[in-house]
């Protein structure tokens, strides 16, 4: 047992932090947020040069071949600095390609992802808003050498600038919602696809994507027809862990920022950090961060070690969802007025805490998985 990052991971974290502070300061984060597109090709290019998109992609696909755990060391810094960009979405989509793709699909897509040439996003939620697999209802019907896809996907991260979409759709009817799901990798510029940005609390460019008789070559099926569930589930579990790690980084930033402010802000002749009631509030926020951290690290470790971790991943996501909202709320409360200003960084974290909660499964959804994994009869 050694719960520290390895030296290599620490170096990765440090360089990531330095890079983000220099290349993506909060002013840039805010600018990208207010921007209609919300993507900086220059920044993306620099990230690609550092190999970030290919971090967990094996070397044979021009990735850096690092472990999942190594990658999470980077993600924590991404969370601390609130990197915008279609980075997480591309990462999550690459999980699905790695899990389900054929060798030729991997050869086709992964090197491009590694080199930062394509941006990919996972389209799984629908208008029903259900995180559960039964929420997947849109249909892809076979026609000759193609599938014809119709329906609407919702909350697809940065679909408006994605080159490809990994999309889950129904190709077969079945009593079990797990059966009959197929994953497709779809050229986002295919005729019949329209994309619109949904205005959200974090302005994080989640999109509505409409598929109107979109023609998908059968070659673009990831894995087997009707058998996409397991790869989707695995990708979503990894995504939940990624989001949790990102949140831990963000929480730590909230703590650091708030503690610094409490030392500096003087009221009634003393730094407000000298007031015991406020000390206890920030102590509780720190405890929430620290408990989240090691719960999340456990899930990271299990995932990275190939151990089953549906329960741990869901515990981590459920706990972190609430902890991040709690910590960022108190970050604002302890900053007082200035914390409620959109120009202030605290507001960024607070809004993104809600977005993080919504991404890859809300608290109740994950707690239901936990209940099941604990052995509660259904």
């Amino acid at each position: 047992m050694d719960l520290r990052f390895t030296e290599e991971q620490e170096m990765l974290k440090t360089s990531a932090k330095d890079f983000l502070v220099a290349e993506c300061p909060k002013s840039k984060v805010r600018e990208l947020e207010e921007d209609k597109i919300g993507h900086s090709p220059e920044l993306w290019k620099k990230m690609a040069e550092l190999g970030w998109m290919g971090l967990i992609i094996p070397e044979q696909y021009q990735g850096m071949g690092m472990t999942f755990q190594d990658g999470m060391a980077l993600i924590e810094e991404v969370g601390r600095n609130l990197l915008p960009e279609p980075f997480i979405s591309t990462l999550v989509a690459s999980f699905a390609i790695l899990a389900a793709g054929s060798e030729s699909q991997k050869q086709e897509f992964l090197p491009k992802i590694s080199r930062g040439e394509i941006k990919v996003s996972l389209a799984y939620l629908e208008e029903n808003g259900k995180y559960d697999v039964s929420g997947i209802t849109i249909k892809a019907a076979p026609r000759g050498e193609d599938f014809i896809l119709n329906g609407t996907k919702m909350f697809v991260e940065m679909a408006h600038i994605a080159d490809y979409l990994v999309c889950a759709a129904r190709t077969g009817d079945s009593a079990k919602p797990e059966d009959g799901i197929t994953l497709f990798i779809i050229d986002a510029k295919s005729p019949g696809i329209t994309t619109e940005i949904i205005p959200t609390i974090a302005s994080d460019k989640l999109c509505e994507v409409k598929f109107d008789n979109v023609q998908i070559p059968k070659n673009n099926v990831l894995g087997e027809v009707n058998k996409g569930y397991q790869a989707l589930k695995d990708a979503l579990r990894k995504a939940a862990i990624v989001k949790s790690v990102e949140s831990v980084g963000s929480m730590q930033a909230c703590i650091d920022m708030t503690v610094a402010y409490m030392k500096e802000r003087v009221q009634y002749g003393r730094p407000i950090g000298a007031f015991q009631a406020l000390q206890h509030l920030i102590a509780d926020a720190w405890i929430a961060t620290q408990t989240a951290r090691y719960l999340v690290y456990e899930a990271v470790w299990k995932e990275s070690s190939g151990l089953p971790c549906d329960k741990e991943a869901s515990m981590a996501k459920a706990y972190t969802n609430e902890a991040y909202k709690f910590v960022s709320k108190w970050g604002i409360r302890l900053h007082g007025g200035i914390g409620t200003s959109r120009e202030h960084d605290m507001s960024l974290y607070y809004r993104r805490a809600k977005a993080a909660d919504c991404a890859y499964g809300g608290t109740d959804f994950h707690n239901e998985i936990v209940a099941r994994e604990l052995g509660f009869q259904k």
Partner: protein
Amino acid sequence: MDFSFTEEQKNKRQEFFKVCAELAKDRMRGFEGFESSYDTDEGWKYHLYCAKEFARRGWLSLAWPEEYGGSGNMMDRVLFAEARGYHGVPGVDVFGVQMLAPTILACGSEEIKREFLPKIATGEIQFCELWSEPNAGSDLASLTTTAIKQGNEYVINGQKIWTTGAHRAHWSFGVYKDDLGGKPHHNMVFLLFDMKTPGVTIRPIKYIHNMHIYNEVFLDNVRVPAKVVGQEHEGWAVVNTLAAFERSNIDDIMRMQRDIEHVVAYCNTTKQDGVPLARNPVIRNRLAKIAGEVEAARMLAYRVADLQNRGELTLMEAGAVKIFESELLERFASLMTDVLGPYGQVKMSRWSPMDGWWERIYQEHFVQSISMGTNEIQRNLIAWRGLELPRMK
């Protein structure tokens, strides 16, 4: 113990609700609440329209002494606030009508009364409050903006911050240091002035959710006539008087009451897997709890109103309702954004359930917990003044 209204009160309440319901019909989607009034031109126009409607019924001066056009009855104000809160109608200038007017009535000279009360009663001038400064938030006594008397005028220099609606208001009231060598609490003046006076510069501060509610106000040699409330150097006493006109928060609470009704309707009509959300045991349980808390808040507000009616209101009771209401609003918004799943994050748009209301309140609730004395300061006051626990020196 009697929670009932008199027949007369019932009739008045009905009238208030009727007029507000009528006004609410003209409201644009998403323009509810006083915060919206400041954000856009349409919002402000709607606010002024409502103000006129209220003014012509004499409702902006309800609780004033009869000689200034009021009914003299505090309870009327509560009933009116209930109606406005429930229907989400603005039209009452929080600063002019709710804070300044009673302060002028308590501390103002006859001249000040005759000049300003009628203009407040007609809704002709809207006020803002030049209060906090960058280094004087909770600790107002440490403010540094100066107002130096020169003949019949004051010259003001410094900076105010978190000024709600400064970019809309016609006039301001505020407090300034007017005696640089004076003793603490005897070195301030409470002044009114026209916001169009040269030297006043307003810079917007956008709120978390991007609404324009707050401002910074820079005061650079602002020369104004001596419209002083109270005595010169004794503005601190006026500040304390004003602080005593705490609101019962009944309007905010009635808004939550109405929200409960909206949410019940939403859950009854919105299905997941073919089953109304209302049948989800977890949702039923959590919302029932919130509804009980809203009812508790409402009763505590009545308690405050009852005390206020008898002139017995304490900071302890006013603080309790302020803390409870603001943190309940936060819990309610957190719960609802959860209930809505991924839609809980969606801003008002064609995708947003309930007009994006909960996404907005999920951010706006801080207005309640941070302004008007943070909840932490309020808890101190409860401990010190209410429970008489010692202060640490």
